[in-house]
C-alpha cells in the first residue's frame, strides 16, 4: 500500500525562497513537530520495549530452573513441588495432544464453513453467516469453560464417551471410565474456539483468489466443486495452511476453558478419556501458590517455552498467509 509521504514543509518553503530568507522559519511549529514526532516514536518504541520486556522477564525469572534442570526440564515427567523436582513433559504432551485433537476436529469444519460462505451460499446469507461464525471468536474463554463444564462434559459422560468406547474402544484411544472431564473434552472445546479463526483466514485467502480464475475453470466445463478444488483451494492452500497454523497458535496458548475441563493431572495416558494437564493450565493453577523460588522459576520456564512456541507458530502462519494475500495483515475480523 503506498504510504503517505508528506513533503517536509520547511524544505518546500526554502526552495521557493531560493537563497533568500525563507518565508516561514522553523519557529515554534517546528519544535512542536519534533516533539510530536518523538512522542509518537516513543509510543512505537514501547511496542518493541514490551516484547523486549516479556523476553527479559521470562528469561531472568526462569534462570533458577534452567540452571537446575537444563534441557532435560522439558523431557522429565516428574512434577514434585515438595521435593523441588520439576519436569514439564506431561504439560508439553497435554498441550500438544489437546491442540492437535482440536485441529483434527476444527480444520474440516472451518474449511467447509469458509467454502460455503465464500463460494456456495446465496448472497443475502453471506454477511449474516460470516458475522455469526465470527461471533464465536468474541465469546470469552471463561464462558466456553463454564458451558463446557455444565453442558458439554455431562453430554460426553452420558452419551459421547460410552458410544466411542463401544465402537472405537479397540483403538485404545477411548478406554477407561467415562468421566466426561479429560483430554477429549478439552480438545472439543478448543476446536469450537479455533474454528472462527481458521475459517476467517480461509475466507480471506479464498477471497484473494482472482475472480477470473473461477470463471476460467467454469468455462472449461467444471462443476462448482471442481472449480473450487482446482481453481480456488489449490491457489489458496498456503494461506489456508497459514490459517490452520494460526489456529494452532491460539489453541496452544488457550488457558481458561482448557483448565476448566481437562482434569488438571500431570499424567500421560493413551486414552483420550483420561485427565491431562497443559502448559497454560499449570501456570494458571499453580502460579499464585508457588511457594519456593525454584517452583516459581519452573512455572516461568514453562511460560517461556509456551511464549517461544506460539511466537514461532504465529510468524510461520503470517508468512504463509502473506504469500497468498500479499500484504493484508493476517488476523481475524469481528
Amino acid at each position, binding site marked *: 500500500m*503506498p504510504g503517505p509521504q*508528506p*513533503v517536509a*514543509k520547511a524544505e518546500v518553503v526554502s526552495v521557493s525562497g531560493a537563497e533568500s530568507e525563507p518565508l*516561514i522559519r522553523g519557529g515554534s*511549529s*517546528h519544535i*512542536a*513537530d519534533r*516533539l510530536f514526532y518523538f512522542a*509518537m516514536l*516513543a*509510543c*512505537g518504541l*514501547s*511496542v518493541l520495549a514490551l*516484547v523486549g*520486556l516479556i523476553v527479559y*522477564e*521470562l528469561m531472568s*525469572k526462569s534462570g533458577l530452573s534452567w540452571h537446575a534442570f537444563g534441557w532435560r526440564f522439558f523431557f522429565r515427567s516428574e512434577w514434585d513441588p515438595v521435593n523441588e523436582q520439576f519436569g514439564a513433559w506431561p504439560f508439553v504432551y497435554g498441550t500438544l495432544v489437546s491442540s492437535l485433537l482440536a485441529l483434527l476436529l476444527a480444520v474440516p*469444519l*472451518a474449511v*467447509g*464453513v469458509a*467454502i*460455503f*460462505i465464500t463460494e*456456495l*451460499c446465496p448472497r443475502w446469507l453471506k454477511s449474516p*453467516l460470516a458475522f*455469526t461464525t465470527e*461471533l464465536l471468536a*468474541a*465469546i*470469552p*474463554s*471463561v*464462558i466456553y469453560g*463454564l458451558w463446557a463444564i455444565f*453442558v458439554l462434559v455431562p453430554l460426553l459422560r452420558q452419551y459421547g464417551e460410552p458410544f466411542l468406547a463401544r465402537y472405537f474402544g479397540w483403538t485404545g484411544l477411548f478406554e477407561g471410565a467415562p468421566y466426561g472431564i479429560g483430554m477429549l473434552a478439552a480438545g472439543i472445546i478448543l476446536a469450537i474456539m479455533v474454528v472462527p479463526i481458521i475459517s476467517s483466514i480461509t475466507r480471506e485467502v479464498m477471497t484473494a483468489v482472482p475472480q477470473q480464475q473461477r470463471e476460467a475453470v467454469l468455462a472449461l466445463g467444471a*462443476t462448482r466443486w*471442481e472449480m473450487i478444488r482446482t481453481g480456488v483451494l489449490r491457489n489458496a492452500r498456503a494461506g489456508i495452511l497459514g490459517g490452520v497454523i494460526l489456529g494452532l*497458535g491460539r489453541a496452544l*496458548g488457550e*488457558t481458561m476453558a482448557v483448565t*476448566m475441563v481437562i482434569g488438571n493431572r500431570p499424567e500421560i495416558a493413551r486414552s483420550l478419556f483420561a485427565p491431562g494437564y497443559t502448559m*497454560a493450565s499449570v*501456570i*494458571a493453577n499453580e*502460579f*499464585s501458590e508457588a511457594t519456593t523460588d525454584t517452583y516459581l522459576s519452573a*512455572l516461568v520456564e514453562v*511460560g517461556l517455552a509456551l*511464549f517461544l512456541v506460539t511466537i514461532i*507458530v*504465529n510468524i510461520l502462519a503470517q508468512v504463509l498467509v502473506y504469500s497468498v494475500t500479499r500484504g493484508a*495483515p493476517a*488476523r481475524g475480523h*469481528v
Partner: protein
Amino acid sequence: MSESVAASEFAVAPISLWRRGVNAFVTLATALAVVLVLLPLGAIFAYLVYKGISSLNWAFLTQTPKPVGEAGGGMANAIAGSGLILLIASSIGVPVGIGAGIYLAEYGHNRFGDLIRFTADVLNGVPSIVVGIVAYGIVVLSQGHFSALAGGVALAIMMIPTITRATEEMLLLVPNAVREAAYGLGVSRWRTTLSITLRTATSGVITGVMLAFARVAGETAPLLFTAFGNQYWNWKINQPTAALSLQVFTYAISPFDEWHRQAWAGALILIVLIVVAVSAVRLVAGRGMLKGAS
C-alpha cells in the same frame, strides 16, 4: 449454416452423474459444517440466557458475595472491579496504541517501521497467561502485593497491538491529498495529523479501540495472579480487586449449586457487555470508516 456447425462443435458435453453427485455431496457437506459450527454457538447463547436470566436479580447487581452456604449475595464488587481494571487498561493502552499507530502510518515507511509492525503482530500472538506472568513480574513483585493496577497493565499490554494495527490501517485509508491540502494551507505537521488525518479516521479508530476492549473485557488468565480477586468492595488501584471474569471462573469450578447459578448470571452480564461493544463497532463501522467518505 456455418453458425450451427460451430455451435455443434462447441456443444458442451453433459456433466456425468458422478461429477454432479460429488458436487451435490460437497455442497451438502459444507452446509452441514456451517450447521455444526452454529450449533454450539446457539447452544451456548441459549443456555447462557436461560440459566443467566433465572439467576439474575437486583441483589446480584447490588450486593457483594455471601459466605458459602448462605443464599443470596451478588457480584456488584466484581462488576465495579472489572470496570476499574478496564479503565486502567484503556487509559494506558488506548493512547499508546493510537500513538504507535500514528507513528507507523505517518513516519513508519522504512525498515524500522516494518520492525515495529512485525513486533506488534508478535505481541498480538503472545498467550494471555504469559502476559499475566510479565505483569506479575513488573508490577506485583515491585509493589509486593496483587493489585488492580497489575491487572490493568496486563490488559493494556494486550490492547496495544490491536489498537496500533487498526489505527495504522485506518490512517492509511485517508487520502494523501487531504494531508497535502493541509500542508498547503501552512498547517504544521503535528496539527495536520491530529486535527485532519486522525479526525477523518475517527470512526475507524474507534472501531479498533472497541475491538481491543471487547477482546480484553472477558480475559481471565492474565488477571489470575495480577488482580487476584477480592470478596469485598475495592476502589484503590493498588489493592487486590475482584473482576467479573475471575468471579465466574472461581464460582464455576466450585462445588456449590448456588455459586454455579451466580456464575451463569455473571457470564450473562459479561457477554452482554461484550456484545454491546461489538454491536457498537458494527454500528460505527457501518457508517463508513472515514468521515464524509460516504
